[in-house]
Every structure is written in C-alpha cells, then in structure tokens.
C-alpha cells in the first residue's frame, strides 16, 4: 500500500488551476523528487499534502487513511514531517532548545538529552548547541531544521528545496544525511531544483507542469526525455 496517495486532487486560486486532477502515489521506503519549472504547482501540491491549503476536490490518503481535511498538526502526529524551503527554525532560541521543542512531546525526559546529543552529532552541530539558532550559517540552519523534522521520527519526510542556498559541499553532505535516513526506513519526498542533488538522492522523479503530472520515472529516464527538457525551455504547453 502507498504511504501517500492523492486521488484527483484539484486546487484553484481564482481562475488559476494550480493543481489539476493529480493522481500520485508514493511507496514506503522511496526517495522521490518532485521537479518542474517555476509555477508548475510544486509548492501548492506540498501545501495540500501538509494541510496548509485545502483542496477544492479530490482526496489525500496517508497510509491508507484519508487526511484530506485534517489540520496540519494532526497530519504531523500521524507520522508526516516537513522541512520548509526558508529555514523554519526558532531563531532567538539556542540550537539545543530548538531540538528540545521538537523532541519533548514524544521523548521521555530521562532520555531527552541523550536524543539531543545524538541528533547534534548527526547534524554536525555538536559544537554549536549553545548558539542562538539565528546565528548559525545558512547551511547549518537548514540542517537544524532537518534535525527538527527528523526528531519527530516521521515515516514520511517532506522536504521543500532542502539545499536552497547551500554550497556544493553542504548540498552533498545533506544528500548523505538524507540517504542515511532513508536507509533507516524513512520515506522521503523532496521538491528540488538542483539536478545534481536529485541525481544523488532520488529513486524516482515526478515532473509537474501547469499543475499536472507531466512525466514520471528514474532520473535517467527523466533526463533522457526530450519533452521534459522542452518544458524547462518553455516549448511545451499544458
């Protein structure tokens, strides 16, 4: 059974059809990337899955259970977690506090510190635990947010351009982190522009164009598809 499924998902903003009849299924254990030119509807699709926007019609199922109208925090409690494009961290709080807040509602107080230490090591932030999160470098902020999202021990991790603004080294290190999480059993769905990064992590790629699924396949199949190259050059209409 798919861990995440959308059936005929639709969303309009005024006259603009941003998500059109999207049927999408994500298998457990998959690392899947969503790509597409600007305005393809990737962010809206993400927001629909998270519950930030509600669809006009269609269904969203998580692990077979319908969550189309569930509140965002309810979806998180079911096992979905998210990393936003702009690092969504608590800037005025220390790195340690950021992780504490992410961990405290499902980790017993006795092992909280142990869990924080483990995450800090995973995120390469052990030296910065007392720093205010706002003082970290951009890449470190991205990692901290990945850490907060992972702290919930989700089954499905959604990542909206997780490497935006990172150096190539940081991007590669992020890819390795995500691969490690995937090896531990986490399913990942990422919106990403950086094709080198997509090649590094994705098992499967979905191309969105004008709110519809345009192509699906492995990265090699997608990059070999001339129609996909054409939409990035603006040569294919919906």
């Amino acid at each position: 059974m798919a861990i995440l499924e959308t059936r005929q998902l639709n969303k309009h903003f005024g006259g603009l059809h941003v998500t059109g009849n999207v049927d999408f299924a994500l298998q457990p254990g998959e690392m899947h990337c969503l790509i597409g030119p600007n305005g393809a509807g990737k962010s809206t699709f993400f927001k629909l899955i998270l519950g930030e926007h509600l669809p006009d019609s269609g269904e969203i199922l998580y692990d077979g259970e319908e969550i189309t109208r569930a509140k965002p925090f309810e979806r998180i409690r079911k096992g979905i977690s998210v990393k936003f494009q702009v690092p969504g961290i608590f800037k005025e709080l220390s790195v340690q506090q950021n992780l504490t807040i992410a961990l405290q509602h499902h980790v017993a107080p006795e092992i909280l510190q142990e869990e924080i230490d483990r995450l800090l090591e995973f995120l390469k932030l052990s030296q910065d635990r007392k720093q205010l999160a706002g003082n970290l470098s951009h890449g470190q902020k991205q990692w901290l947010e990945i850490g907060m999202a992972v702290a919930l021990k989700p089954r499905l991790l959604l990542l909206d351009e997780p490497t935006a603004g990172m150096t190539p080294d940081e991007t590669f290190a992020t890819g390795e982190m995500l691969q490690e999480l995937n090896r531990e059993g986490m399913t990942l769905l990422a919106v990403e522009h950086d094709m080198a990064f997509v090649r590094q992590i994705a098992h499967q790629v979905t191309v969105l164009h004008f709110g519809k699924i345009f192509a699906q396949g492995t990265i090699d199949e997608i990059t070999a598809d001339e129609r996909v190259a054409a939409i990035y050059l603006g040569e294919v209409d919906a």
Partner: protein
Amino acid sequence: MSSASRFTSFLKLIEGPQTLGKGPKFWSGFGVVLLAACAYPFFADSYDVGNNVYFFNWLFMAMGLSLIWGYGGALSFGQTAFFGVAGYAYGVLTINLGDAYGLTLISLVLAVGISALFATILGYFLFFGRISGVFLGIVTLSVTLVLERFMAQTAGPEWAIGKARLNGFNGMGAMPSLTIPWPGGNIVLYPDVTLYYVTLVLLLVCYLGLRILVNSRFGNVIVAIRENPMRAEMLGYDVRKYQLATFVIGSALAGLSGVLYTSWGNYITPASMGMTAASLPIVWVAVGGRSDLTTTLVGTLAVLIVFQSLTIYGSQYALIVMGTLLVITVLIAPRGIVIALLSPFMRRKSKLEGER
C-alpha cells in the same frame, strides 16, 4: 521516576532557558531584595506601606502581559478588560454576599474565574479564528473600550445587580476589603502592613510559579509559537490551544490585579478599562523587557513609581512622559531598557560559557 525526583525536577524549572536570572549570584540578589521588601514595613509608616501596596497590585497584570506578549508573542492591548471585569465582579459579589465566613476570598476566586472565563470565550474566537499580529491588538483594545463605554452609561438605578449599584461613570464603591476568617476575629485587609505582606506573598508565588511555567514544556512551546508559529504547528503542536491557554492565564492575572486593586481602594471605575489605562501596561512591560518575567517586574515597578511621582505635577504631564518613554524604548532598546542595560553583562557571560 519517583515522585520525589519528579518534584525536584519540577522545582529545577525555576531556572531555565526562558528566564534570565540564574545561579547563586541571582538568587542571592533575589534574597536581598526579598528581605528588603519584608523589612520595609519596619522602617516606614504603616499608612505609606498600605498606600504602596498600590504598586504591587499592578504587577500581576504586568506579569500576565509579559507571558502573553513577551513569551507568547501575542500583543493584547486589552488586558484592562479582564482587570475591570474581575474588579466589578468582586464588587458585585462582595456587596451582595458580605464579608463574613471568608466570602470575600471566595469572591476573589470567583471574580478571577469570571475574568478567566471571559478570556476563554474571547480568546477562543481570537485564536481559533487565527487572528494575530496587529489585529489581535485592535480587537482586544476594542473590547476594553466597549466595556468602558458600557460601564460608563450604567448610572441609573436600573443598573444594579442585587444590592450592588454599578454607578456609571462615577464607578462602584463601598465593597468590603478582603477579609480572612480568623479565630478570635476576622483579619480585614485594609491598606496597611498585613495587606502588604499578603500581597507580597501572592506576588512571590505568582512570580515563582510563572518562572516554572515558562521553563516547562508548556513554556518551550509558547516561545516556539512566538518565534515561528508555522514551525511549531509542523512539530505537531496545536498552536491555537497553547495560545488560548497562555491568554487565559495572563488574563486571569490581570483579573487578580483588578480584584486586589478594587479591594485595596474599595473602588472601581469604568476608566480602569479606558484608553489610558489600557496603554499603560504596554509601556510598563515594553520598557522593562517583556520577554523576561524579572525585567518585567523591575521595569514595571520603576515606571509605576516614576509615573506616580510625576503625577504630583499633573497627570497629563506624566502621561506625556510615559508616551515618550515608550517611543524611546521602541527606537533605542526594542527589547526593553532593563534588558538593554543587562546585555553587556550577559554577553560577557555567554562568551565565558562558549570558552568553557
């Protein structure tokens, strides 16, 4: 975990990431200030001591606003609404019930409960309606101004609840002071030394209780909501419930201020919910440093004393100084003057921690 160690870890929350003062130096200083506060009545005229309880009365509302605004990030401009509701409720209850058998204490609890209930209803529509930022300030200010206007037109004899006349613009008076039942004669808390100590103890309990609250898991979540509500929600927290709970606790403290003030002066007027009254708590809390309970207390007490001294020269003049103080704070020390004064010491300390 055993119950003893659970209690110890509960007490440990008195210090934590959400409160500035920590360590032996802070608590020694705290002890000295507390001792000085306890010793003050021995060196002052009891009439002055009773008068100065006035300053303590407001501190509960200030701490409540620090919780809602400083910690929770929701600027409520209408805390005086809960102050007034609780003040009037105490008046109506005690005028009708009298002061025997500890009924004034029950009235205190009921009046604070009524203000908390009012905050729950208002807060439900605000937070579950996702009203935030400047709109929250506008709605809460409107509520307190509506209450002021409403109470101001209750002058006629038809505006009475039982024996309690509301008295419109002139305000309600002649309610009994808080009275503690005691074998061999009730202790009536007139504005004198006994009331001073009772209020001081209440203040101490609320201050320490709030320190524990803000350093607890609940406190972690409310500062997380202040910093980034969307992230907090995406960590699985129902942000609306936390905001509502914070608002209710802070507003109940404003209600406690209202009851203590009404009992202290045996008097409450609609003006206590008016524009000027609603603005002043914002000034106290902003000037001290709203994001910390201790700086809020120190700042509020300092501003109140300066304000009171200035009103000797005329209340309008004092209000202009308050307005100027707020503008200066916002421009020069947006996190609060007390915090700005402390920050060089805090920087040195955190640098030392980093070197360790």
